């Protein structure tokens, strides 16, 4: 088991290097730092001195990969590639355009992101499973048909509409919760209720429909027929057998998103003005702060790969038939 995990983790390293090379190419080779500087400074009257200063402030004035002028090891380390890409591996993200330390920012913004993402994930899973079970229980009846069509309809609505409609209904008309904002401590509760609710509701359509097919697939298997033949009630069959076995694909499928919860929900956070990592990313994109975007791309792929590794491990844990190869 341990060797398997070690091998999986080692396999992740070349992928991370690939991600790093790709972002480096995108950010520094396709567009030279000169281009970035000119776009950032804006306007037509940008003097070469201004460009030079902008580059020097961010350390973009060094050679891309190989520094001829430096001596010894510095030939390789005193370059944009080393300073901006390789150092990501050591979680040295540098500082953003307004001079703040990115690592510090990320640490600070992780908590609000988690405060929304984790409850939304847990409640969403619970609601989806219950709804899917209900549909599976009433399969091939009127309830099932209406429920499935409802799921498809809910899938067809853009997530943005859920947010706007939720804000309008609950905050503006009923005045139950504030429209947006965030606070520390328990005061935050009233701010995060609506984002969590919207996160859950907007996921029902696709989630419940997907789980319903999983449950139905499970119900077509032989052990269910055996259970029915034993004389178990449909209720017991569903909860004691189908639910348990259906949870295997559901949970292993959900594992991959768990690490990504740290990244927060991009759209929700920026709509509700929550100072999490999602809104951090969006603000960085809008203000074209390349250092932050680079850091978030790296962090995101790292977490995704972590999720993949966890998925593989969870498979072997739940299902002993899977061999470790």
């Amino acid at each position, binding site marked *: 088991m341990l060797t398997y995990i070690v091998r999986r983790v080692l396999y992740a390293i070349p992928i991370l290097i690939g991600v790093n090379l790709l972002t480096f190419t995108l950010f520094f080779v396709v567009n030279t730092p000169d281009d970035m500087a000119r776009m950032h400074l804006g306007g037509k009257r940008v003097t070469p001195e201004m460009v030079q200063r902008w580059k020097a402030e961010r350390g973009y004035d060094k050679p891309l990969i190989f520094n001829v002028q430096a001596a010894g090891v510095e030939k390789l380390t005193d370059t944009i590639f080393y300073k901006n890409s390789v150092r990501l591996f050591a979680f040295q993200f540098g500082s953003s355009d307004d001079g703040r330390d990115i690592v510090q920012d990320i640490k600070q913004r992780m908590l609000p992101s988690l405060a929304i993402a984790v409850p939304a994930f847990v409640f969403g899973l619970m609601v989806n499973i219950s709804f899917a079970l209900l549909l599976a229980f009433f399969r091939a009846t009127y309830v099932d048909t209406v429920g499935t069509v409802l799921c498809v309809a809910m899938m067809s*609505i853009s997530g943005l509409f859920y947010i706007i409609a939720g804000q309008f209904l609950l905050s503006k008309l009923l005045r139950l919760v504030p429209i947006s904002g965030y606070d520390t401590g328990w005061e935050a509760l009233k701010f995060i209720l609506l984002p969590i609710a919207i996160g859950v509701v907007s996921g029902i359509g696709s989630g419940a429909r997907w789980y319903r097919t999983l449950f139905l697939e499970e119900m077509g298997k032989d052990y269910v027929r055996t259970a029915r033949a034993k004389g178990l009630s449909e209720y017991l069959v569903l909860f004691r057998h189908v639910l348990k076995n259906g949870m295997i694909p559901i949970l292993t499928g959900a594992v991959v998103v768990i690490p990504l919860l740290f990244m927060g929900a991009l759209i929700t956070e920026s709509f509700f003005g929550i100072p999490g990592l999602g809104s951090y990313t969006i603000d960085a994109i809008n203000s074209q702060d390349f250092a932050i975007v680079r850091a978030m791309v790296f962090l995101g792929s790292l977490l995704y790969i972590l999720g993949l590794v966890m998925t593989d491990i969870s498979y072997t844990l739940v299902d002993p038939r899977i061999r470790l190869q």
Partner: protein
Amino acid sequence: MSASITKQRLRQWLLPVIALASVCAYIAAVWMYDLKTVWLWTDLLVYVLIVSMAAFFSVAKRRAHLREPLQRIVENRTAMVCLVVLAGFMTIGVLDSVHFRLPSGGAGDHGKRYAPEVTSILDLLMAQQRVQMEKTYASPLSLWQYEKVTVEYPDGRHERVYPRLQFGGAHIAPGAAHRQDILRRVASGVGAGLMMGGLIALLALGYAMSRHAASAREVVSGVMRATGAIPWRAMWLTLFLLLIALGVVWALAGEYHVFGTDKVGKDVLYKSVKSIRTGLIIGTLTTLVMLPFAVFLGILAGYLRGWVDDVIQYLYTTLSSIPGVLLIAAAVLMLQAYIHTHPDLFPTEAERADLRLLFLCIILGITSWTGLCRLIRGETMKLCEADFLLAARAFGQHPVGIMLRHILPNVMHIVLISVVLDFSGLVLAEAVLSYVGVGVDPATNSWGNMINAARLEMAREPMVWWPLLSAFIFMFVLVLAANLFADVVRDAFDPRLKRR
């Protein structure tokens, strides 16, 4: 005898002849009205898409393994109703994909002069909605502007009043019955829609009578009782409903802003209809652009195995491990920087917006391509174990031949399923990306841009809700129809599902 054969030939060639005739008509119009045709990149790809769709169906009709699932789709009521709706959207999208510049009158130094803006056939059809701009917001069907303005009277008094709209309902005299006028127009719109539907029905009736050699009575009763395999009755009902809706909107749009106007006074109906093309292009071209790549690499990895497989797997794992939105954001930021530093490469605004749209499709394709590639690789590996492939190898057929003749046709169903399934997700993704600021060009009409603007509009007092509602309706209908249709396509083509 010979007459019936001629008739049969005629029927067979009906669709190609209609297509050819419309192309000829367009060329004639270009020549007569002296238009300057503009070839946008996405337009060309739309034509490629149409041609390849036609080619696919003509091939599929002759292949049993494709004809059978197609037959199942054709016999499914939900699928066919959705298809009618989707066909309506597609017609608008195609009409909006033929671009040209109108002559602006007067000859310049270098021959003819043309208007700077790029127009499409749809723009001509909706010329009134395009041109008649108000000052600012106006609610749907309203006569009055949303904001008060200060009016100065001849006697020097100032007053804040809601001014009348310049175009919306301008035909109504002050104090006349506004509501009656709307009702009258709705009624005439319903009538026009019914008439249009009736006309199409008559044409179709004539065609069906000649095809089945049946009397009009037999054909009509067959459709009405829904006896045949194809759900004609439901399809006709949908068509009539669509035409009635079209008729009502058309009748109202003659004098009003049916969905109101936006901040700069643009007609919201026009914007929503123009957004259809953007949505369709993002939904279809994204997969089309990356399709050859995904299929080629998938088959290569699955067939050759070994180090080729390793490299391709590494490639798509790396790409898919970057969070999609961030990769798109990074790429689009780079594109913005590129456009900013190379303004000379993009002469007109339309071309710039179009290239950005195409680029967005490619980037979206790169992020969504990996799933399809993985599926095709798996299917190819499975096919390699099949007996017919073993036979082909034993006969010494060239690997390229095997991949082209034996594997490619057998993974086509996966390609089709994924194209159809991805569509609705991509249309929805466009809205999110435009919100984040990395979507289509802000100058392009898109539902995402409309929703983005709605954020501020909803905070106004009184609330400006109509652009959001309009975008919602169009988007919801398109995505819902696509989702329902995709389900049926998947069920029909997926061999793992049992036949019912």
